[in-house]
């Protein structure tokens, strides 16, 4: 009886891990996600155009399931770690660019802020391993 239970548990756990793995699509080989502008440590007055750079992969609409492509998400002042098994959150600090935008007008209150890009797949899941940019810090005057 115990053995059966154990086997069931094992099976359930494997299934679970499979389910978790199922979403994470591999990112393109040598793909690099980076900020064209602003650079780390920049001091900016007022609003600015944030430009997203992506090398060795393509930008497409959210929902389009093309090989080797994704869409940008900009994380502003986000400290909690990214959960690779959930869609990238959508709120005021997780900005989505599902229409294939490669730049955005950003307005932030004065002070220090961190910015980080995360590439999402057609269903807004991060890639596996997650394709993220360096987290940069900027200062708004």
């Amino acid at each position, binding site marked *: 009886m115990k053995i059966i239970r154990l086997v069931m548990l094992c099976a359930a756990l494997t299934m679970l891990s499979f389910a978790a793995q199922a979403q994470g699509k591999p990112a393109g080989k040598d793909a690099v996600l980076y900020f064209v502008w602003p650079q780390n440590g920049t001091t900016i007055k007022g609003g600015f155009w944030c430009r997203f750079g992506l090398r060795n992969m393509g930008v497409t609409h959210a929902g389009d399931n093309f090989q080797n492509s994704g869409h940008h998400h900009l994380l502003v002042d986000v400290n909690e770690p990214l959960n690779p098994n959930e869609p990238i959150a959508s*709120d005021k600090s997780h900005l*989505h660019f599902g229409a294939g935008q490669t730049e955005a007008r950003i307005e932030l209150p004065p002070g220090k802020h961190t910015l980080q890009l995360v590439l999402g797949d057609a269903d807004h899941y991060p890639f596996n391993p997650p394709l993220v940019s360096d987290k940069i810090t900027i200062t708004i005057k």
Partner: protein
Amino acid sequence: MAEIRNIKSGKLGGEPPRESMPRRLAAIVAGDIAGYSRLMQIDEEGTHGRVKRIERDLIEPSILEHHGKLVKTTGDGFLAIFDSPVEAVRCGIVIQQNMVGRNASLPKHHWIEYRIGVNLGDVIIEADDIYGDGVNIATRLEGIADPGEVYISGGIYEQIKHKLVCGYESLGDRKVKNITDPVRVYRVLPDAAAYGRTRKRRETVLISLLSLTLLIIAGGVLWYLLGQPSTRVADRASAPASSQTGSSQTQPNPAATQAAPSSQTAPPAAPATQQAAPNVQPVPPAAPTAPQALPKQQPAVPQQPAEPKAGVASAPVSPGTPGAQASAVREPEMLPLRGGTFAMGSNDEASEKPVHQVTIKPFAISKYPITVREWNECAAAKACTFTATGKDDAPITNVSWSDARQFVAWLAGATQKRYRLPSEAEWEYAARGGTQSKYWWGDQLQPGLANCKNCADAAGAEQPLKVGSFKPNPFGLYDMGGGVDQWVEDCWHKTYQGAPSDGSPWSAGDCSSHVIRSGSWKNDATYVRPANRDSYDTNVRYPTHGFRVALTP
């Protein structure tokens, strides 16, 4: 390939074989630097060095990366061919976008800006150059392109229009030098926002022309009115709805200004709307100057006409709209709301300012968000594009604004009733349920009143709870805050500056994103506030986004 050669040689009979001159169809990319001579004049060696560096670090690798072949570089330009038009245009965009970054740190007169033209054509390929009509057209396109832009020909456009996520602005047929037929030219706009900007520019011109005309008319009317003794007031008062837009600010007589609810807090005129009579709360006239000091309003409480009682919802069970119609469609349960005036917005977030008065006409709104069952009826009728999985009474999720619009269009057609998405103002009016507090139950967060992150037991769940799992608000509406994000009709605006005050949807402006309300089960408690607002791309689906419907009676 071999067969084609055979046919060709057969046709040409005795001519010597022409294998040495291979032809092929290719996407030709021509680029050159705008104002190269000027740059050379300013700083000859520096410019030369920079150009060579750009060619080495950017242009050559970009072309290789996109599976193209660099044919040659000239002093200030380059010529490349690609097998794929998509790759060719992508390469052009990449070069242009990288140049933006490279120029960002330099003063404007030192900028190196490329003009790029892309054409599809049959070319003759030789070891170190290419020839043909197609090449000439590509260089002409490059010649008419603005610095920093990519211009493409009609042939390229036809190939890539559905494949490359960009905006394309048609510049019409252009006659180019030494080419007989005019060439259709398109400008590539690397992202949709840029496309919106150019359209906006055109709209601005149109709107300013229109407003100029209106001003002239208004001026004429004013002149006419001032010239006349004020005996016409009665006439004007009898047609308030039409006169309020054009000339309310020019009315010389205060008696006639009653039709503009935005500037005065006086109750809206009876003839203007079908307002119910009890909506006459006295409001101090000083209120509009200090929006944050707005007194607590008491919007008319919507009930079934028979129930005159306000306060705790007694959960009116009968569906608002009688399903008397024989139509097979099961309609969402609707709750009619009486109109009223309320203070929309809050001072908690920049996007919710300024607090402003809005007058809502009577309308009905669905008691719950639209469910999977209701959505799938639309899908079964082939009017909605996908069939949802999940429990029947769970709210529908992963819908874009356009999907939601498809649903209401189908519902309106199938029932012959004026179903639609609620406006943002209607949504907030309904969500507040007659209150002006932070949440509809008061200013403090209370557990178990909404489905949000860290405020219910079901936190972090993969799916939202079924609709109606929590208490309804004072109007008897469920899930107005938390649960699923809900699309409304309005386009996104960063603040309420310039928002309409008559409860209508605010559709002008940048409509590439629309407003979502309510916050979802994945957002924390601050998103549950009825004043909270956010936006999302119009055509993009997200797993927490749903909607509810409204009905014009």
